[in-house]
């Protein structure tokens, strides 16, 4: 990460929101959209430029599930654990992914390719159980399908 870019990025975001009251969450959203997470350097920079204490920024960052403090993997696997998905077997899918990738929830594989996260509800309960890999949605997933889904993406990596 080039520090100079980061300072400019943060400046751009902070300027965009400076006239709005209660803008901190929106600033952090913009930063996460850019980097995929909120790097500590960026949080420090926001603190400097918006003249609010770092503690105030981390207070918000750590309260909301949506903000990530660690860089995401190349692919983000989200397993939905909403009620419909839970009833239709999502826990078995999580087991299978853990087993196949040796990764715990909220963590990234050692090679940095897959990040596993568990989400509360993706809002497509009619398709339960649902897994998304980045933007791609897999519906009515069975345990046996998981290996194929993972392979589809790890193949894409090895090709490049």
């Amino acid at each position, binding site marked *: 990460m080039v520090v100079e870019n980061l300072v400019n990025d943060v400046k751009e975001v902070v300027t965009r929101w400076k006239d*709005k*009251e*209660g*803008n*901190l*969450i*929106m600033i*952090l*959203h913009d930063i996460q959209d850019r980097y995929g997470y909120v790097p500590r350097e960026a949080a420090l920079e926001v603190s400097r430029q918006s003249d609010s204490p770092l503690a105030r920024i981390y*207070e*918000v960052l750590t*309260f*909301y*599930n*949506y*903000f990530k403090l660690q860089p995401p993997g190349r692919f983000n696997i989200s397993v939905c*654990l*909403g*009620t*419909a998905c*839970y*009833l*239709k077997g999502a826990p*078995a899918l999580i*087991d299978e992914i853990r*087993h196949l990738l040796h990764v715990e929830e909220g963590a990234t594989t050692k090679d940095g390719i897959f990040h596993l996260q568990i*989400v*509360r*509800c*993706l*809002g*497509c*309960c*009619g398709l*339960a159980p649902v897994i998304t890999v980045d933007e791609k949605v897999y519906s009515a997933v069975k*345990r046996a399908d998981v290996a194929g889904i993972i392979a589809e993406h790890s193949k894409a990596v090895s090709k490049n």
Partner: protein
Amino acid sequence: MKRILIQDTNGDQKKALRDFSVSFTTQLRERGLSDAAQVVTVADIGVYNKGIVAKILPEGFIYVNLDAARIGEIIEKTIQKGEKVQDLLLDKKNKQMRLGLRNCGVIDPESIEEYIAVDGYQGLAKALAMGPEKVIEEMKKAGLRGRGGAGFPTWMKWNITRGIKGDLKYIICNGDEGDPGAYMDRSVLEGDPHSVIEGMMIGGLAIGATQGIFYIRAEYPLAVARIQKAIDVCYTKGLLGKNILGSSFNFDIEIRLGAGAFVCGEETALIASVEGLRGYPRPRPPFPSVKGLWGKPTVINNVETLANISYILFHGGEAFGKIGVEGSTGTKVFALTGKVRNSGLVEVPMGITLREIVFDIGGGVFENRKIKAIQTGGPSGGVIPEQFFDTPVGYESLQKLGSIMGSGGMIVLDENDCAVDISKFYLGFCVDESCGKCAPCRIGGTQMLVILKKISEGKGTEDDLKKLEQIAQAMQKASLCGLGQTAPNPVLSTLKYFMAEYRAHVIDHKCPSGKCASLVSYSINKEKCTGCGMCARVCPADAITGTRQEKYTIDAAKCISCGQCFDVCKFTAVIRQ
């Protein structure tokens, strides 16, 4: 080209369906119509237990209880002339009624022209002509109650805020749909953004607000994009900004994003979040209608509520009030999911029975399993067992049963779902999402979860069941906000209706539905076992061994009770106890 979708909806006429399909195709060919129509066998046509069913597209005619003798007639009348064969038609009364979802899937959500073509912004025009008092009067006639869960009358909420003096007032749309298993708000925001904006403007006019705020989950990027696009186009068309439609009404809208905190669905926590703070709830009073965002009077309405308002103003409060039942007027959108054949969003008039929703619209449960209950209201709601399915849907009627209308999640549970497990799931959700500000919710929730875990592992005692109730009552009375006050509801309602199941866990150490892994054991019935070895292949713990001759056995010491062998065995040779 026409398409003829066919399915055997009884599930026991595989051969008859195949013959029907072949015969249909042959007859089409004989008449030289092979290029005019195509027969497709489908997996689920949305009709159940009506023999062989055919759906003709694009007309959408559904013919039921078919046999090959009627094919000729169908081809002559429907395929060639586009006419109906009356006596074969499915006698289907449409039990759904679309008000909140009226434009979803009908118009292009990104086109304001299409919205205006379906009488969009006419409600606003009428409201501007009527003035605020009359708008509230109209809302009172309609009797619309908040669709977010609590069911507070919308007109009353507006009237209170209207009565508060203030230079600046806010109206916020609560689009922080966090209830797992509900997604109607997302559908409306994505499918008909202008109707929500119009509703918000009418609300703003009624209460005297000049600023509207959409608070939407960041997890719904498409909804955010569509609302933003709709706002932008409204500004260019003069529907937002100063002197809207030539009146003296000024109104601005902006979007604020949620960041994944269920508690932010609670009004005061939502306000804190819009202010850029942690989503901690505040004690009430003062209520937001008096002192809300930045200390100013604020009304917070749910997405579905707002989508109904433009309809009410355009068609009149009285017309709306006639839909539904006394005390609960209009329609409600439910996200019907879980173990139901036809899952998806359904919008029904209030007063319809739960049975009609689950069986007539939803088609009942899969594979003729026994239905156990439905769960409404998500983590704040409760279960309703099958014997109460003839209850009409309404705010009070569901509350009487120990559940709530909620935001509209309706999850169907069948005999394979365990009451202890489901209440553990919901409570686990609330414990995760508790903000931790007040002790009853923070500590009470955690302790209840510990007890439920104990019970599901077979280590619970009868005393634990009493403790659960005690803690639950304490939480209901002493928690600061709605999250903590309602978090014990799933536990209390399952205790009320499925006590026998809880007792089976603590006294017999058995899980009747076989869901709680530590309480079930698996074995193989050698007489039924064909030696196919499927179970051994799927077993992740290598606990199953055997040969085709000797049959297979499960080593109990290695078995992790995952149940995969049970699911995979086609000969019901795996026994679950």
